[in-house]
């Protein structure tokens, strides 16, 4: 049918089928790739367009519905300010504010937010914060925690009203003393409002207890806008899905409807005969290669127990067959035509049943490859037994023994961009895999044997990523597209639906954790023991390493005091078992949130039982700077452990700063504060959890960087590190710019492409800023050295000779001690064109012998309805020691977004299965993630330390924000009403039950 409508202000005509979705029409017919796909059911808002000026979801609208209406997409808004000889209009005010405030992380939701904001501001030029939040209620963001987008919109509103807004250009707020509950904002150095009243403060900067770096820093430490912000805010076609290739097929997977079965018979002939089907692959059609889907370094620290396709299925959602067809509708029809006969086997759904004598064996294949203590005959994917010190003696010496069992659920990463990959043969007959991955280099290495290609004939390109959070540290869908490209010779695209994300991807390991702790009357911990039963689901990807970190981080924090501090007694045992449920895997925090739920709930119960002070007790027993990381002598991700001393620990200051910011001392255990006036059924409560994480895997994780100079004195920075929205491209560019003495926009960053960029192990283990950052600094220092040598030569040609070491790089120039200077552009021209020509460039790489832990204190304030058990989280404050903060905007963005994900873990996120192993949650209605209009207040504080093992003193910030919220919330519930919830999330019914028992 023919429809006519206004598209971005222009009348257009379109011939569409009645069942074409507006989203598909806009992307496929008009190439408007700023409209994103995040789900199929209207829940995420990534596909937002304005329909007669109002935000709507184009994925739940037929194209035919827009006849006679007007549609606006992000493509009609703003442009890059520099258009060469044509003077450009620049970004629009909302876009500009998004860029400046750090409101963009992965940017996948950004076009939607910008459109929603413009719609709001068109009708309401002076919106309240609540109105702004309401306007964003239809757009889920998994990265930001919404603070910065909300602030951006308020800021844009002020700009559009013609008011003056405060610049966000640092330097950072640096209160001299500890922060008090209501801080006076100091005026920014170097900014004079000129007497004009500033209408609005943009509160996107975290508060920072500054550590003064020995050398003054110019770019590191500053709130630089993200290097990819301008493209993302315009909705440029930067993501995996945003390309068109001629003849590209659509791939779909036939998923198992049963939890455990052998495929007795499979017949794809009817599907193959369907017109428009290019290929159907079953286990009979492709080679059988055992591999692991976990994207990790060689050799993989886990069993090889996966096959692209197998004659057995191990969970509802497991792979049965692949189809490639001309379009999605045909592919789906073909799936229905594949005939499969299953011989059902008994299914294990409860991890406690997996180790039972006579339990069904989930992995009975002869080609299973063991790693370490894995034992498929007992359904054990991995097993850990760590004893530090003399645990039994510690228990004997204790005055009190506390024992309890805690539980954490399976949860989803829920990145808004689903898993997606596009594969094709290039003109050299090399297989190109364009994919949304956190691990491009591992993907290439691990896929090579699976596809029967040498690694050199595979090229993996990682464009912008719409969030990963560990879900994309997995080689999950690339093989499907690649097999189908090999089968058909054609480009193939596979993209998960939201439902597939729930039932056929990876998730956080659910665990049952038993704690036993010995404590003396004075509150000294004498021994601490944890046993974790961890459920890896049907495959053992990340089984050993995730659960290892549960102990390695969470059980390392409390070492005891006095003599126990010298020689801590710690035991960590774990069994990681197979069940017939979707596989667990990597999810931000990597086992550590599970551990801290148990440890920090347990500590709180000890404190309450013994009548101790929660902060004092914790700090008394916590690890301190100068001490050996207790696990460093015992375990290192399945590799050889080597002792490691903690250089920096800001934990005590974190606890102080956080408690002051949340006004702990006038709230904790204070009945007058706990009661809510006129609401006898409500109680307020406050809680804390202390946490630590790691920074990279020592002696293993490596990142590389290369830097070269261009004619104009700008630099290309090529890195294998994979920015998945975290801002790593930006903080790496900042570190390069700092060394080279240039502004960050003279650094052109490209990441990542296995053909062009140096190796990097990928984005995980909170390592990029630290590991890849040190690699960048190494490369930059070599380049700086070449520049100095060249500048010395140039100075010498025209005057007194200068020693290269004496030359300083600053303001895009090389300066001699006597005040002469040459610009880097002159240096570049000299070296590339004029004399002794050479390409000034260098490669650096870095591997660390240590993994300096960041520390943090997480506080939560809640209101509990003691009759219904409903918990409302009112406020979250996190004070974090992440070393030196390279970029306060991106770093606080990590903390805000991490706390928001963790808030879901605390109160509402949970994946459950029925007695047939079918997922309860397959969409964002049942699996609720927090939206903009229901958020508690969030506050981020950084307590800087200078980590000596990194050139600028940084430690990690990416994962730690996810560790403490759930226990802090549950501890706050305990403070409010005595409710003692041992299983996360803290749902109304669990609180209600615990109050009745």
């Amino acid at each position, binding site marked *: 049918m023919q429809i006519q409508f206004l598209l971005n202000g222009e009348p257009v005509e379109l011939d569409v089928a009645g069942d074409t979705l507006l989203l598909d029409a806009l992307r496929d017919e008009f190439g408007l790739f700023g409209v994103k796909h995040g789900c199929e059911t209207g829940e995420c808002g990534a596909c937002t367009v304005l329909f007669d000026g109002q935000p709507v979801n184009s994925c739940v609208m037929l194209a035919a519905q827009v006849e006679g209406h007007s549609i606006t997409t992000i493509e009609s808004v703003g442009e890059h300010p520099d258009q060469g000889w044509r003077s450009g209009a620049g970004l629009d005010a909302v876009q500009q504010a998004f860029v400046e405030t750090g409101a963009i992380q992965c940017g996948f939701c950004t076009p939607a937010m910008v459109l929603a904001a413009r719609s709001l501001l068109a009708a309401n030029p002076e919106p309240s914060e609540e109105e702004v939040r309401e306007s964003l*209620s239809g757009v889920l963001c998994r990265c930001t925690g919404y603070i910065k987008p909300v602030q951006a919109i308020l800021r844009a509103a002020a700009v559009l009203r013609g008011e003056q807004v405060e610049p966000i250009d640092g330097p950072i707020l640096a209160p001299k003393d500890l922060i008090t509950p209501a801080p006076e904002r100091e005026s920014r150095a170097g900014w004079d409002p000129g007497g004009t009243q500033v209408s609005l403060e943009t509160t996107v900067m975290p508060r920072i207890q500054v550590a003064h770096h020995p050398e003054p820093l110019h770019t590191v430490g500053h709130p630089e806008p993200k290097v990819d912000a301008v493209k993302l805010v315009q909705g440029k076609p930067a993501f995996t899905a945003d390309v068109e290739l001629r003849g590209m097929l659509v791939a779909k997977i036939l998923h198992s409807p049963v939890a455990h079965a052998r495929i007795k018979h499979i017949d794809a002939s009817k599907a193959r005969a369907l017109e428009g089907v290019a290929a159907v692959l079953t286990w009979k059609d492709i080679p059988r290669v055992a591999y692991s889907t976990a994207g990790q370094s060689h050799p993989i620290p886990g069993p090889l127990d996966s096959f692209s396709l197998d004659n057995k299925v191990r969970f509802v959602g497991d792979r049965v067959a692949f189809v490639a067809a001309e379009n999605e509708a045909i592919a789906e029809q073909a799936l229905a035509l594949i005939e499969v006969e299953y011989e059902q086997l008994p299914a294990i759904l409860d991890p406690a049943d997996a180790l039972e004598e006579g339990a069904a064996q989930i992995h009975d294949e002869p080609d299973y490859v063991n790693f370490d203590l894995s034992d498929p005959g007992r359904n054990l994917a991995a097993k850990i037994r760590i004893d530090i010190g003399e645990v039994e003696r510690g228990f004997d010496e204790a005055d009190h023994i506390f024992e309890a069992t805690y539980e954490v659920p399976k949860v989803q990463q829920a990145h808004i961009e689903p898993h997606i990959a596009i594969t094709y043969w290039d003109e050299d007959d090399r297989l190109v895999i364009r994919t949304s991955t956190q691990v491009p280099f591992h993907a290439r290495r691990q896929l090579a044997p699976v596809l029967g290609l040498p690694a050199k004939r595979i090229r993996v390109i990682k464009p912008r990523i719409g969030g990963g959070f560990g879900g994309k540290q997995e080689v999950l869908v690339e093989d499907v597209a690649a097999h189908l490209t090999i089968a058909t010779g054609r480009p193939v695209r596979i993209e998960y639906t939201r439902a597939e994300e729930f039932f056929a991807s990876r998730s956080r390991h659910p665990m049952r954790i038993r704690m036993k702790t010995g404590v003396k009357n004075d509150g000294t911990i004498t021994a601490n023991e944890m046993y974790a039963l961890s459920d890896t689901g049907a495959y053992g990807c990340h089984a050993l390493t995730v659960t290892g970190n549960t102990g390695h981080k969470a059980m390392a924090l409390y070492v005891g005091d006095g003599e126990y501090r010298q020689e801590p007694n710690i035991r960590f045992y774990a069994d990681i078992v197979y069940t017939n449920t979707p596989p667990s895997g990597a999810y931000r925090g990597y086992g550590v949130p599970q551990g801290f739920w148990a440890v920090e709930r347990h500590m709180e119960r000890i404190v309450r039982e013994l009548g101790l002070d929660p902060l004092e007790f914790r700090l008394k027993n916590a690890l301190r700077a100068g001490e050996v990381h207790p696990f460093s002598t015992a375990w290192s991700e399945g590799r050889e452990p080597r002792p490691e001393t903690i250089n920096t620990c800001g934990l005590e200051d974190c606890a102080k700063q956080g408690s002051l910011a949340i006004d702990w001392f006038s709230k904790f255990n204070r009945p007058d504060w706990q009661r809510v006036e006129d609401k006898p059924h409500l109680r307020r409560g406050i809680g804390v959890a202390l946490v630590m994480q790691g920074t990279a895997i020592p002696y293993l994780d490596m990142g590389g960087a290369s830097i070269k100079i261009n004619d104009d004195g700008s630099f290309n920075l090529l890195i294998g590190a994979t920015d998945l929205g975290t801002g790593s491209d930006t903080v790496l560019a900042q570190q390069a710019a700092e060394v080279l003495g240039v502004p960050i926009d003279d650094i052109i960053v490209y990441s990542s492409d296995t053909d062009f960029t140096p190796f990097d192990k990928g984005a995980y283990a909170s390592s990029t800023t630290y590991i890849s950052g040190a690699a960048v600094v190494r490369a930059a220092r070599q380049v700086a050295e070449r520049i100095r040598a060249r500048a010395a030569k140039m100075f010498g040609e025209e005057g007194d000779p200068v020693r290269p070491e004496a030359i300083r790089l600053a303001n895009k120039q090389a300066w001699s001690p006597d005040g002469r200077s040459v610009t880097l552009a002159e240096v570049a021209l000299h070296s590339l064109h004029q004399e002794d020509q050479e390409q000034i460039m260098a490669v650096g790489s870095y591997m660390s012998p240590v993994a300096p832990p960041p520390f943090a204190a997480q506080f939560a304030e809640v209101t509990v309805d003691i009759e219904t*058990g409903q918990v409302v989280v009112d406020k979250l404050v996190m004070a974090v020691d992440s070393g030196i903060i390279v970029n306060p905007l991106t770093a606080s963005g990590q903390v805000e977004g991490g706390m928001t994900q963790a808030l879901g873990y605390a109160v509402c996120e949970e994946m459950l299965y029925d007695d047939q192993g079918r997922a309860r949650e397959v969409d964002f209605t049942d699996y609720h993630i*927090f939206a903009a209009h229901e958020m508690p207040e969030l506050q981020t504080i950084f307590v800087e330390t200078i980590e000596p093992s990194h050139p600028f003193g940084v430690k990690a910030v990416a994962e730690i924000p996810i560790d403490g919220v759930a226990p802090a919330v549950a501890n706050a519930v305990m403070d409010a009403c005595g409710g003692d919830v041992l299983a996360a999330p803290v749902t109304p019914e669990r609180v209600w039950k615990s109050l009745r028992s």
Partner: protein
Amino acid sequence: MKYYRPETIEEALELLSEGVPLAGGTALAPERRTLEAVVDLDRLGLDQIEIQSGTVRIGAATRIQRLLDPDFELPAQLRRAARFEASLNLRNMATLGGTIMTANARSPLVLVLLALQTSVSISGEASEVPLDKLLDNRMTGETPFLIERIAFALPGALHYEYVARSPADRPLVSAAAVAPADGKKYSIAIGGYGERPRLLDPVAGDAVEAARQQAARRYSDAGDVFASAEYRSEVVSILVERVLEEVQS
């Protein structure tokens, strides 16, 4: 799938022999591959809101967001329920008719409409149908029918309460009470469990305990994956008490 865009109700009714009504499409669009034909209600003018002598009439194709429009003096708690029904993006498309046709017991808006003793006008039917009855018969008819509008009397007082895992999550348990303008019995609806919200038998103002017990009884088997029957049954009685107290004060 065929797509029709009739200009009149008569035309629409004729086309409904071939396909189903399409309102906002937010529930229907994902089902498109299973449908023969859809009849778009966009041009039928079924999007009027009228408030006259204490009676509110709302066209079935009215988008939910319009209920929040300050131009119409609708009860604040109805707006609150409408706001919780769906996110802004969905409210901008989804309609009242579509919501009534698809709602389960977790729908705040339909719960409140039920408590308001809403009646529904269906094309070709002489008299209005109580919403309570329509919710039972929604999907049973062979030929699709067309809801034209709904109507309810402006209440003396109205209150809605719910319990959920987070403020914008769908309710696990919910209740709404209406104090009628004419001072007769109180109307109470409960929700959170099952295919649709339920009306309690109307109660006298002082019969709080009776209402509590009635609600608890109704939910004595209301267990599912999200909450146990034990929990729902007790908490619904608490919510019923709260909403009743609220509308009495």
